[in-house]
């Protein structure tokens, strides 16, 4: 039953997914198009060395190398973009549709609420993976065009950390929306936490307590650990994937036992 719920959700979401994919691809190409101007620019590298570490962390190290440039200039904003997409979709899929009265149609069919939730959760993950694939392909291809080639394996691992980090907050939003039926609350918490933690991570190098607790922040592994330069660790991605699934699983009984509004 849930695969049908998944298929129908994907059909409904395909247009907005397409526009987001186009936006991300254009953004990637635009940022990478400036790389040839910075490549091998020693003056810039010297300037960066004179900056305090905190500013270097904000601006990105090694802007003259492909990995440093893509990691510092392009991927540093991707967690915010992907989190916003994941949270907006996550709140719309159950709570947002419920608020519009659209859940009565699928739920008056012999479709258990759990199957609807599962289908829509898998759809959210599918959409994020599709955006991840777009991000990977556009960085890799634009890298070839603009003389910033990147090893495909490392790039794939890095993109996976970004996508699954955003998945965690999208799943949190979906779970909150399903449990409460309140899309505003869900998107506020999910998007707020996801983007707030990006900012927190950018401060972690200066604030000791944040640095000590940074292992709890999914964005540490995607941003501060420089996966593009040092190689990505698979575990944080796997943990984000499972944690997101667990959040939705925790919300399922609440969704099954509450009133569905019209």
């Amino acid at each position, binding site marked *: 039953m849930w695969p049908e719920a998944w298929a129908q959700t994907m059909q409904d979401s395909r247009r907005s997914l397409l526009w987001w994919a186009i936006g991300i691809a254009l953004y990637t190409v635009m940022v990478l198009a400036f790389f040839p101007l910075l490549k091998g620019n020693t003056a810039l590298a010297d300037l960066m060395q004179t900056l305090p570490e905190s500013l270097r962390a904000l601006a990105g190290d090694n802007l003259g190398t492909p990995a440093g440039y893509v990691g510092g200039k392009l991927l540093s904003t991707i967690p915010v973009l992907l989190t916003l997409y994941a949270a907006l979709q996550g709140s719309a899929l159950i709570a947002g549709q419920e608020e519009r*009265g659209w859940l009565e149609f699928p739920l008056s069919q012999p479709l*258990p609420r759990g199957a609807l939730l599962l289908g829509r959760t898998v759809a959210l993950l599918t959409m994020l993976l599709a955006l991840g694939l777009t991000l990977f392909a556009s960085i890799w291809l634009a890298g070839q065009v603009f003389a910033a080639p990147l090893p495909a394996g490392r790039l794939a691992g890095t993109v996976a950390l970004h996508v699954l980090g955003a998945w965690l907050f999208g799943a949190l939003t979906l779970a909150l929306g399903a449990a409460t039926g309140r899309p505003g609350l869900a998107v506020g918490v999910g998007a707020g936490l996801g983007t707030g933690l990006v900012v927190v991570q950018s401060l972690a190098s200066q604030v000791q307590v944040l640095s000590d607790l940074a292992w709890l922040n999914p964005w540490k592994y995607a941003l501060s650990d420089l996966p593009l330069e040092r190689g990505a660790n698979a575990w944080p991605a796997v943990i984000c994937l499972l944690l997101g699934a667990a959040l939705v699983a925790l919300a399922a009984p609440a969704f099954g036992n509450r009133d569905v509004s019209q």
Partner: protein
Amino acid sequence: MNVIETSGLSKRYAPGVGVNALTLSVGAGEIFGFIGPNGAGKTTAIRTLMGFLRPTGGNAHILGHDVWKERTEVHRRVGYLPGDLHLPRDHSARELMTRSCRLRGGASADYGLEIARRLELRLDARLGSLSKGNRQKIGVTLALMHRPELLILDEPTDGLDPLVQDTVLALLREAAAEGRTVFLSSHVLSEVERIAARVGIIRRGELIRVESVQAFRASLPQLVSLRFARPPRVNLSALDGMTQGVADGLDFRGAWRGGPDALIRALAAESLDSFSLVPSTLEDAFMDEYRSEGPRKEADHVA
């Protein structure tokens, strides 16, 4: 086994809001009208029967299945039309019918297409471009298309023009003739009268009466309006069965309960210019009840 069986079914949002202790049985093949003014709790009762709202008391079974715990099994055998139909604007009727078929394990859309043809429904137009009446046709088609054993329809003819209303009522009669059960709500008695054999009256969340349409109809007062040709010798207001009588010169108006015999006899010796005896509508009946409760409520409020 009754198709619908509820016992003390309640859904209270707050004191006085929702449905209270609804006990009702509807048998197979019956067309049951659930009537009451807007805001009386019809939709709450229906959405509780559909397993969208969790009962706060009592229980309800449809075709032997608990409406809350076994709602998926209930949905398999029930066609539902919501009172306020919300569907995504960029879908067409055909897409929604296909989706419904797929969610029912590849059910056939043949009967749905036949209904759509009879309702003159535009299958490929996007919902956003359709009028309220045309969207309602889609809702009716979706509810009926799988030939379910029970149809639960919240105000099925709402927004439809009279010709289409006739078609919908004919479709419901056909369903009942095939042994399927129809449970429909309405705030218009005349509509329910045309199709239902039995009605339940809900007011302020309470099921106040369940009886045959004929018995219910007979119990409502009829509006008497007449003009005497000459000053009358009879005092109509004094007759048993006459209430709210108002004489104004040669004109007389009042509300009459019971058979017409006594009234006709009382008028036999009089000469009349005009005479009419009009059945009062459900709306009139409820207006009376609300009017009689109005001042008391206000007093409560002031106190």
